[in-house]
């Protein structure tokens, strides 16, 4: 006989679990060593039932939240349901066994109650240094996954509450910054320990039977509500194509083809016909592709639907093995999670622009703008490494302009503040950081602006790498909206006046995907981040909005005249 649970109690349990995930994140943010944790928030925290069903998540990184489902599934499959003991913690960062990309490490802790396994708590986080071919990982010209860092299949770093020293030694001897790695992992472990205590407290208050019944009911509710949202989209087959520009090794586009079928409450996102996998690191593994589709539909549907396993049940993602959306071992994958993922999410919006014009948005800037660097801190003699990323313009959508310089749609992260950047890392001084006028795609609802950052090397030498996209092909607009501006990356050597691309200065194949370039004291780097696409005909834009844009410096007077057709406003700016 099933347990009937009143809606108030269900809401209490749902909010409790979500709040627990949020607090896990606060623990990580406040106790970690690296800015990518405590400033960028490039991590996620999730709770699962013993079968691997996601029970709760919080508002962290969408690409990680989708992929961690697969990472946990694999871990439970590989270790087996009886493979866990109280006090164990499993680590996992192998993309070909379910994780997103090598820098993202998952830690998983089983939660026991009166001797029985009742839940898993897990977090996944982007480590700032993972022992790849160059500092910070995400080597833009990697050709196999072994160049992207230390791979860890699901193994225990704590067994029955005790550190497994052999595993710790392997990890710490492979990362360039072991002290930071250790501090960040300890923050993750602290977060899991806190979550375990919270779940114990919940069960102590409500009883195990009630909590398990509530969890099952919450997943059923989420599934029903998500299916109802999908049923509101007109049935049909929708298509869209986009491409990833170069892979750091070969100068060619990698087309991605989407056939999206909406059939009642079911969705099939079919990527058959997409390009074969790339030689360089722009490949997505299956979990990343699936995660990008979940991310798109979570943006399109009611945000009050409980964020648990039930949300994902209506979706089938078809990603043929050996393609750029589901590459085969041992292809490199670092940029799949930072560059290809946002492209896939945006493609859902593009496909559905005529079916649900009130809900979709134009393309965002579509790159995490990964710029990585490392070296030896001259102040201490200790190694340092950092994964720096930037915001982009987001696409315009019905009723609203796109956000300016917000980290791309797969990330929900934050950039590193200038003050922290300069304090923590001796390598650079930030010379300027600004929004770029006219970089947002024109539209009735304008695309968000991209930005520009210029910084100067302040140490004898620093090793830099990059893995950026949307440097050649513009973020697209929808429903008559215009394209956002592309990004770019340049270097100006000390004592010279000319900005040159890395191709021109260092002979890299790609202007935006390379690794291991040495810059020296006084050299400057200029990163330009793409804008977002526009929504709707720019000639329909509210004249007062154009006036404000010109006054704020978001749109030039020339563009106000030529693109928005507002001759009379040009002179007033």
């Amino acid at each position, binding site marked *: 006989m099933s347990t009937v649970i009143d809606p108030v109690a269900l809401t209490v349990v749902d909010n409790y679990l979500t709040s627990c995930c949020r607090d896990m994140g606060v623990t990580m943010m406040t106790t970690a060593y690296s800015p990518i944790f405590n400033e960028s928030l490039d991590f996620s925290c999730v709770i699962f039932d013993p079968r691997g069903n996601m029970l709760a998540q919080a508002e962290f990184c969408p690409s990680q939240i989708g992929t961690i489902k*697969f990472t946990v*599934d*694999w871990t439970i*499959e*590989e270790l087996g349901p009886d493979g866990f003991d109280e006090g164990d913690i499993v680590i996992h960062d192998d993309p*070909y*066994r*379910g994780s997103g990309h090598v820098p993202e490490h998952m830690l998983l802790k089983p939660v026991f109650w009166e001797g029985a396994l009742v839940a898993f708590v897990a977090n996944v986080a982007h480590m700032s240094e993972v022992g790849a071919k160059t500092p910070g990982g995400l080597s833009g010209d990697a050709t196999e996954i072994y160049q992207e860092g230390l791979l860890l*299949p699901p193994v225990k770093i704590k067994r029955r509450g005790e550190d497994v020293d052999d595993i710790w030694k392997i990890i710490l001897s492979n990362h360039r910054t072991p002290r930071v790695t250790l501090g960040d992992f300890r923050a993750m472990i602290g977060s899991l320990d806190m979550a375990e205590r919270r779940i114990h407290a919940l069960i102590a208050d409500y009883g195990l039977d009630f909590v398990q019944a509530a969890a099952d009911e919450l997943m059923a509710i989420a599934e029903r509500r998500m299916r109802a949202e999908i049923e509101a989209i007109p049935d049909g087959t929708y298509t869209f194509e986009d491409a990833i520009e170069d892979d750091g090794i070969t100068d060619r586009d990698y087309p991605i083809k989407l056939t999206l*079928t909406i059939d009642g409450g079911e969705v*099939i996102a079919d990527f*058959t016909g997409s390009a074969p996998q790339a030689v360089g690191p722009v490949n997505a593994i*299956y979990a990343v592709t*699936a995660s990008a589709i979940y991310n798109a539909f979570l943006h399109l549907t009611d945000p009050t639907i409980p964020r648990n396993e039930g949300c994902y049940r209506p979706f*089938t*993602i*078809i*990603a*043929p*093995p050996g393609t750029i959306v*589901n590459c*085969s*071992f*041992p292809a490199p994958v670092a940029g799949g999670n930072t560059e290809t993922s946002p492209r896939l999410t945006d493609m859902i919006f593009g496909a559905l622009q005529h079916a649900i014009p009130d809900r979709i948005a134009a393309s965002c800037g579509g790159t995490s703008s990964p710029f990585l660097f490392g070296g030896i801190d001259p102040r201490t003699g200790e190694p340092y490494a950092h994964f720096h990323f930037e915001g982009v313009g987001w696409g315009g959508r019905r009723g609203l302009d796109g956000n300016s310089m917000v980290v791309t749609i797969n990330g929900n992260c934050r950039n590193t503040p200038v003050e922290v950047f300069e304090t923590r890392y001796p390598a650079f001084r930030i010379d300027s950081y600004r929004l770029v006028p006219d970089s947002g795609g024109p539209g009735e609802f304008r695309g968000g602006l991209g930005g520009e950052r210029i910084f100067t090397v302040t140490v004898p030498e620093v090793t830099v790498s990059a893995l950026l996209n949307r440097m050649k092909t513009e973020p697209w607009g929808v429903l008559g909206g215009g394209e956002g501006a592309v990004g770019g990356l340049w270097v100006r050597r000390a004592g010279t006046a000319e900005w040159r691309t890395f191709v021109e200065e260092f002979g890299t194949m790609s202007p935006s995907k390379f690794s291991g370039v040495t810059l020296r004291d006084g050299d400057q780097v200029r990163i330009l981040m793409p804008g977002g696409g526009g929504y709707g005909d720019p000639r329909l834009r509210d004249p007062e909005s154009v006036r404000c844009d010109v006054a704020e410096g978001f749109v030039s007077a020339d563009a106000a005249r030529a693109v928005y057709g507002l001759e009379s406003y040009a002179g007033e700016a």
Partner: protein
Amino acid sequence: MGEWRETEISYLKANRAACELCGHPIARRYWGAEADGAERMFCSPDHERLYNDYWLPRYGRKAVT
């Protein structure tokens, strides 16, 4: 009629099994079924159904991987 089966997790093989419909890598447990004249691996019975109802009408027979 298909059934749930298990495959061995190996650290010695480079080629990893994947669902014949969606391409999802299979860790251990899979739904084994005869479809389109061949024994095939799927994530679930639902993916066996979609292989017959969605994949075959659009793309035709798939080589067994």
